[in-house]
């Protein structure tokens, strides 16, 4: 697949850059989980749709990347809201596993919808960003841009969560759901907003991933499982844990992929994950309750 280079330093740098995007993905999933107590199994499929949206906006409609990106982010934000309103909200009172499986149904649905609507061809934006050379280490601008944008997105989310009333309510709801009404908070509304933000984060990730990878209906399967592992290892709903775990996994994948194939990078990550479960089963930064 050729996205890892021969030198260890390059692999390390690339791992760091990959970690930024993985952290962004894990953050969105963790946000949804922490607030609504639901795991969106179809999260990576939302990203896939975002990548298709970028493809259509840029290649088919001829828009500039910078115009298309906010549109794709908004579109996936709306998809997040629809997912919540149509699938999750009717199931909120039922066993949590029902909600998880229903999003599994959505995963199937979105994958097939993409197959039917877009076909199974691999597509890309055809944008080839130049490569930066620093002391003989080659780093692509696409990855630097992705890393920078991912960090910016996470910073924006952090400011939203700490500096606004709605953001404070989103953090509070994860700590005590039941008394939110006493604060005058309509939890249903906060869920919808959270779903929109979670979707928008997936949208942002898709704008960045589409610069580096081809899009096809099954592209979600190549980073979905790794995102779930990151979230579980960081502690579901624990955003800081997920952030750290994302970089650890990215380095494992990147360095593993340097010596063998990329798939082996994933396999090492999984082995590491299982090993970590023996050591720190509640996640990296577990809060002992």
């Amino acid at each position: 697949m050729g996205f890892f280079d021969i030198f260890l330093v390059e692999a390390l740098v690339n791992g760091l850059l990959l970690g930024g995007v993985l952290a962004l993905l894990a953050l969105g999933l963790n946000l949804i989980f922490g607030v609504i107590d639901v795991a969106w199994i179809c999260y990576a499929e939302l990203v896939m749709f975002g990548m298709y949206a970028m493809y259509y906006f840029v290649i088919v409609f001829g828009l500039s990347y910078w115009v298309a990106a906010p549109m794709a982010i908004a579109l996936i934000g709306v998809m997040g809201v629809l997912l919540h309103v149509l699938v999750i909200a009717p199931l909120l009172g039922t066993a949590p596993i029902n909600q998880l499986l229903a999003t599994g149904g959505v995963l199937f649905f979105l994958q097939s919808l993409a197959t039917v609507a877009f076909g199974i061809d691999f597509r890309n934006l055809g944008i080839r960003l130049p490569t930066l050379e620093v002391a003989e280490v080659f780093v692509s601008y696409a990855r630097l841009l992705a890393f920078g944008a991912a960090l910016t997105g996470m910073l924006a989310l952090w400011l939203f969560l700490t500096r606004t009333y709605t953001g404070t309510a989103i953090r509070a709801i994860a700590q005590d759901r039941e008394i939110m009404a006493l604060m005058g908070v309509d939890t249903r509304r906060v869920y919808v907003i959270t779903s929109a933000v979670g979707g928008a984060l997936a949208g942002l990730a898709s704008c960045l991933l589409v610069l580096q990878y081809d899009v096809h209906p099954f592209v979600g399967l190549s980073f979905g499982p790794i995102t779930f592992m990151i979230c579980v290892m960081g502690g579901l709903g624990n955003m800081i844990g997920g952030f750290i775990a994302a970089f650890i996994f990215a380095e494992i994948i990147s360095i593993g992929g340097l010596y063998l194939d990329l798939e082996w990078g994933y396999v090492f990550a999984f082995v590491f994950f299982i090993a970590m479960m023996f050591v720190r089963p509640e996640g990296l930064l577990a809060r002992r309750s």
Partner: protein
Amino acid sequence: MLELRNVDTGYGTFQALFGASLEVRLGEAVGVIGPNGAGKTTLMRVISGLIRPTAGQVLWEGTDLATVPAHRIVELGIAHVPEHRRLFPRMTVEDNLRMGAFMPAARPKFAQRLEFVYGLFPRMKERRNQLAGTMSGGEQQMCAIGRALMSDPRILLMDEPSAGLAPVIVQQVFELVRRIRESGLTVLIVEQNVQQVLKVVDRAYLLEAGTIRMSGTAAELSASDTIREAYLGV
């Protein structure tokens, strides 16, 4: 100002209140006393809309709260300090207070209300950047009361403010209740600590097994034989 008329309610098939009626007038401090499991917390929850009456009415200035969504009730001026304080333990004191001012009408007054609460509880100002869950029980109770006051309410519902606190802290909490009611706020307080609560309220109701058994002024109840024997231990 606040009136419950023959309210029945419960959880599923379990009925917790049977035809409960009570009234709180403007500027009053009213107590509800009774043993564990009498339905005192349920009484508070039915007022703030966390559960709904299955029969009877909850009237706030004459209008029935039955159709008002729970999250709108605080906007009408009813603030509830829940049982066990229920702070957001992993947020700072100031973020907890910010949640108290969440409703749109309270947000422009945030700085002013914060000043008021910090004036009432200088300790909270010292600890404003501390995580709420790391404070002592008494401090947490201050924070919980402060959070309720942030919405600039017209009535404060307090559910067992002294529960789980050391005796010397209990004294401080009732001192706080006295100061709050002296500031002109109407207070409805539910307590097991009958002796203390009867010192700070004007009137009180005795709630047993989901039914109001007795009501009267604090002095009347303190003098009643039933109360003296069962709750004051004299």
